[in-house]
């Protein structure tokens, strides 16, 4: 495991993002060390997905910088970031419904392929060779790894939520990522499925050497597999550090984890009710 002194692979530096008067991110800064699993947590609406969208280039921040391997990418167009090796999945699952699982995964490799229109129309020579290589690589490395060979020709719309999440991950892996950004990878999964996804995430990091940045609500998993946790609330980083430290941070408990003391909360609610 690389130490904390290693150069960060991804730096978020004072990123501020606002839409129409509402500030979604306010001076967010943190670093992602190569080879780690970094998790961003926070209540709904805290700006986690906005942060992901900003990193992947869908939003452009009003202020601040994003650096990838030390290079400024703040103004870089989204597709070019993908080519650099920033791959992601989406919270609401952005699989392409008109394609099969296999084609969805193949799509991930898009920016690393080279065949042009003429090659494509003729499907002879370069395009054909490239597609065959791609197919072999996806079959042997990704489909096998994620164990989705039984659904490779299924239309994605017919898959269960959990499988769709897995296909999304497969597509992200096909992008040959350096940093894999996962937006709620285990949302809607039961304990068993969650365990499996956690294992995949760990394996990706170990076998592929990919750095992982994820947004997740499942505290159990986050605290278990993360090396570093960043807590967002109302667009600001309120705490970061090792899982155990974050869990113990009183502000984090107040804003997100909750006091956990339901009885006390109930009491307060009742008081408020009577006061009114």
């Amino acid at each position, binding site marked *: 495991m690389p130490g904390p002194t290693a150069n960060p692979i991804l730096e978020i530096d004072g990123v501020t993002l606002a839409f129409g008067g509402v500030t979604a991110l306010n001076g967010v800064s943190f670093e992602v060390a190569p080879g780690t699993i970094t998790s961003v947590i926070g209540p709904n609406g805290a700006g986690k*997905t906005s942060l992901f*969208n900003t990193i992947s280039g*869908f939003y452009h921040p009003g202020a601040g910088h994003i650096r990838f391997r030390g290079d400024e990418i703040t103004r870089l167009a989204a597709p070019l970031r993908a080519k650099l090796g920033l791959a992601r999945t*989406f919270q*609401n699952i*952005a699989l392409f419904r008109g394609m099969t699982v296999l084609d969805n995964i193949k799509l991930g490799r898009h920016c690393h392929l080279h065949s042009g229109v003429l090659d494509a129309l003729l499907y002879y020579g370069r395009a054909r060779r490239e597609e065959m290589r791609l197919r072999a690589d996806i079959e042997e490395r990704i489909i096998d790894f994620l164990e989705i060979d039984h659904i490779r020709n299924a239309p994605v719309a017919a898959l269960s939520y959990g499988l769709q999440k897995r296909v999304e991950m497969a597509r992200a892996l096909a992008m040959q990522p350096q940093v894999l950004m996962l937006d709620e990878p285990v949302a809607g999964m039961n304990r068993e499925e969650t365990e499996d996804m956690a294992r995949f995430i760990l394996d990706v990091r170990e076998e592929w050497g990919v750095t992982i940045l994820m947004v997740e609500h499942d505290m159990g998993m986050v605290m278990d597999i993360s090396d570093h946790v960043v807590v967002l609330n109302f667009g600001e980083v309120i705490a970061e550090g090792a899982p155990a430290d974050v869990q113990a941070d009183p502000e984090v408990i107040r804003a997100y984890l909750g006091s956990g003391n339901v009885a006390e909360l109930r009491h307060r609610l009742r008081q408020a009710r009577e006061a009114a």
Partner: protein
Amino acid sequence: MIGFDWLMLAEVSFAGLGSGGLYALAGLAFVLIYKATRVVNLAIGEMLMMGAYFFFAATSSMGWPIWIGIIAAVIGSGILGAVIERLLIRPMLGEAPISVFMITVGLSSILVGTVELIWGADQLRLPDFMPSDTVLIGEAMVSPKIFYGFLAAVALIACVLLVFRFWRGGVALRATASDQAAAYSMGIDVPRVFSLTWVVAAMVAAIGGIIVGSISSLSPTMGVFGLSVLVVVIVGGLDSVPGALVGGLLVGLVESWTGTYFGGEFKLLATFSLLVLILMVRPYGLFGTHEIERL
């Protein structure tokens, strides 16, 4: 500018505003439907045509008095609107917008065929029912049909805006337009709102059709007018009633100016160039709602 005919400019501008009013009226019918049901109705020109033919049937064939004829045509069109909504549009709820769009293309073909079957393909003339003396605004002469047509259009649009604003049904319609699911959850009978909008839009279209038909003539090709309406609503914004008004007047003015100072062949070129220009600057028209995209 010495020697420039300012009176002519004034007359041309009035004429432009006048025909713009008619565009706005037809645009209103279009916008009503789009706003409430998100249907891009390519058959809007044909709905105008149906209104005009109903009027023709009531007055020329049945020999009814003009005003009864107008009322009959408006009611007839309203019923037609309800039938169209029930038979063609409602089954398509939830389908891709492009499919519904194509339904209206089919609809226009059906309406044209029906008109040809019943009334034949000849050009017909509607009875004159507006005062025919030239209207003078200052020194500028304005064609009476255009003038009264404009008044009718503006009055109708004002009516619709008022209803939208102050009648509870107007609130229901705007609520449905703004968020279907939420409208349902307020207890609003959304399908009924849909069908009502089609009825009202068909009625507005009928009035537009009667005016347009009396200015030019009546024939199964009258639906071509719908194309100009399309430009109008795109310029104004598909879901904006004031947009239809402003878009209509703007297109009317641009058409008449280019027609006068450049020649008739430049009219369409000018309006469509205007359209492209506006789309490039404001992709949702002048007043249209910008849809927010999310990942």
